[in-house]
C-alpha cells in the first residue's frame, strides 16, 4: 500500500479512538455538558432561519386581516368565555378542596402551578430515541432541567437539555421516556412508556385482571415528582391480551399533538424540589418489578431523582 494510505489510516484510527472516548465520556459523565451548552449556540442562526416562514406568516397576517383571522378571533373569544366560566368553577372547587384537605388534616395542600409560555422552534420526531422538541426558552428565561411541558390538550414532555436561549424537550413518546399515570376513572396506577412513534404510548405491566377499558383517560399521577398530578396524558385506544403473555398489551394515544402545536406551556411546580429530594433506591424498584427482564432493557428516566451511574439519569442528562 502506498504511504499516504497508511497516513490516512493512522489518522483515522487516532480520531476514532478519540471519538469513542468522547462518546463514552459524554454518555457516562457530565464533563461535556458545558461544552455542549456552549456549542449548542451554533443552533441559534439555524433556528432563526428555520422560523422565518412562520414569522413571515405572522407578519403578513398582522397586516392583511382576512376572513379566517376574523373567524379565529371570534372562535377564540367564545372559547375564552367558556374557559373563564370553567375557571370560576375551578376556583370554587379549589376552595372546596382546600376546605376538605383541612378537614382531613392533610399534611400539605398543593400550591398553585405557575405557567410560562414558550414557542416551538424545531421538532425532531425522526427516530425512536430522538423524539425531541426545541423551544425558545433557555437558561436566560430561568427554565429548569426536568421542568414539565404541556400544551392545551395534555402533557408533552420534560426539559432535558438547557442552553442559553433555547432548550430541548424530551417528549413522552420518546422510547427512553416513561410517564407515571393513573386511570382517571378509577385511579389505577400505571406507567405510560414511549414507543418512538408520536401517536402511540404503551402501558406495560398491567395484568389481565386490571380494570382498564378502551376510551379510558390517563392522567399524570404525580409520582416520580416530575409531572404534577392530574394533567391529561393519553387515551387508551387498544387493549390486547395475548395468550401466553403475562401482561396485557395496551396502546394509548397521547392528547398532545407533538407535530402540530406551535406554543407550549412550561409548568413550574413549587413541589418540584429535585435538589433536596432523598435519593431513590433504584435497586428496590428493580426487584419489586414483576418483569425484571423487561426492566433491564429499558430504564425509566422519570422515576429517579438522583443521578445514578447507569440508568435513568444517564438517559436524561446524555
Amino acid at each position, binding site marked *: 500500500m502506498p504511504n499516504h494510505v497508511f497516513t*490516512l489510516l493512522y489518522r483515522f484510527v487516532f480520531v*476514532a479512538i478519540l*471519538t469513542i472516548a*468522547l462518546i463514552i465520556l*459524554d*454518555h457516562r459523565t457530565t464533563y461535556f455538558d458545558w461544552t*455542549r451548552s456552549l456549542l449548542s449556540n451554533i443552533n441559534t442562526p439555524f433556528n432563526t432561519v*428555520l422560523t422565518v416562514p412562520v414569522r413571515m406568516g405572522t407578519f403578513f397576517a398582522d397586516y392583511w386581516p382576512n376572513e379566517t383571522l376574523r373567524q379565529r378571533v371570534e372562535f377564540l373569544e367564545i372559547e375564552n368565555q367558556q374557559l373563564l366560566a370553567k375557571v370560576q368553577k375551578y376556583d370554587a372547587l379549589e376552595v372546596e378542596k382546600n376546605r376538605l384537605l383541612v378537614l382531613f388534616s392533610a399534611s400539605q395542600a398543593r400550591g398553585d402551578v405557575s405557567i410560562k409560555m414558550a414557542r416551538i422552534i424545531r421538532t*425532531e420526531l425522526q427516530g425512536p430515541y430522538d423524539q425531541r422538541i426545541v423551544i425558545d426558552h433557555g437558561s436566560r428565561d430561568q427554565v429548569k432541567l426536568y421542568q414539565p411541558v404541556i400544551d392545551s390538550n395534555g402533557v408533552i414532555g420534560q426539559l432535558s437539555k438547557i442552553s442559553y436561549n433555547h432548550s430541548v424537550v424530551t417528549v413522552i413518546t420518546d422510547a427512553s421516556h416513561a410517564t407515571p399515570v393513573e386511570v382517571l376513572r378509577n385511579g389505577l396506577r400505571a406507567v405510560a412508556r414511549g414507543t418512538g412513534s408520536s401517536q402511540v404510548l404503551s402501558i406495560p405491566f398491567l395484568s389481565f385482571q386490571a380494570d382498564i377499558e378502551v376510551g379510558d383517560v390517563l392522567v399524570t399521577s404525580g409520582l416520580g415528582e416530575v409531572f404534577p398530578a392530574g394533567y391529561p396524558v393519553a387515551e387508551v385506544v387498544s387493549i390486547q391480551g395475548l395468550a401466553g403473555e403475562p401482561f396485557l398489551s395496551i396502546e394509548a394515544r397521547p392528547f398532545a399533538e407533538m*407535530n402540530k402545536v406551535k406554543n407550549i406551556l412550561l409548568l413550574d411546580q413549587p413541589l418540584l424540589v429535585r435538589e433536596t429530594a432523598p435519593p431513590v433506591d433504584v435497586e428496590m424498584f428493580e426487584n419489586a418489578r414483576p418483569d425484571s427482564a423487561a426492566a433491564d432493557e429499558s430504564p425509566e428516566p422519570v422515576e429517579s431523582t438522583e443521578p445514578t451511574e447507569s440508568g435513568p439519569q444517564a438517559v436524561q442528562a446524555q
Partner: protein
Amino acid sequence: MNTAKIHYERVPSWGYIGMTMLIAVLLTVVPVPEAIQYYWPDWITLVVFYWVLVLPAHLGVMFGWINGLIEDVITFSLLGQHALGKALIGTLAAIGHKKFRLFNFLQKIFLIFILQSINIAISAWTNHLAYGAPVFMQMWQPALTTALMWPVVSFLIDQLDPRYG
C-alpha cells in the same frame, strides 16, 4: 445528466465549501413531514464525499469528523455519534479517491449506498450501546435516498460554484 464530468482539477474557495456545508446542515435540521422522515437523505454525507473527492490532499479524516461533530451538536445527539461514521467516510473517500473519481455515476451511487449504510450502522450501534435503542431495517432507508440524491447534489455543487469553468 453526466455527473462523471466533475471538475476535479479546480481549486474551490474555502468560502464555497463552507457554504455547501452550511446548506447541508440546514437541510438536515429542516422540519420534514412524518411520511418522508425515514427517507430524508443524509446531506452531510454527500457534501463530505464530494469535497473529499475534489480535494483529497487537504480534506479527509478531519473534514468528515468536524462535519459529523457539527451534526451531533445540531441534532442534540451524543457527541461523536455521527462524527465517527463521517470520519470513516472521509477516510475511505480519501484513500480510494483515484478509483472513485473514475467511477460512473451508477457506481458512485452504489458506493455511497455502502458508505452511508456503514455510517448509519455506526450511529445506530452507538445508540444501541448507549441507550439500548432498537435497531431496525427502516433506519437504513435513508442510505438509499442519500445514494439516489448524489447525481443531483454533485451536479448542483458543480454548477453553482463561481469558479467553475
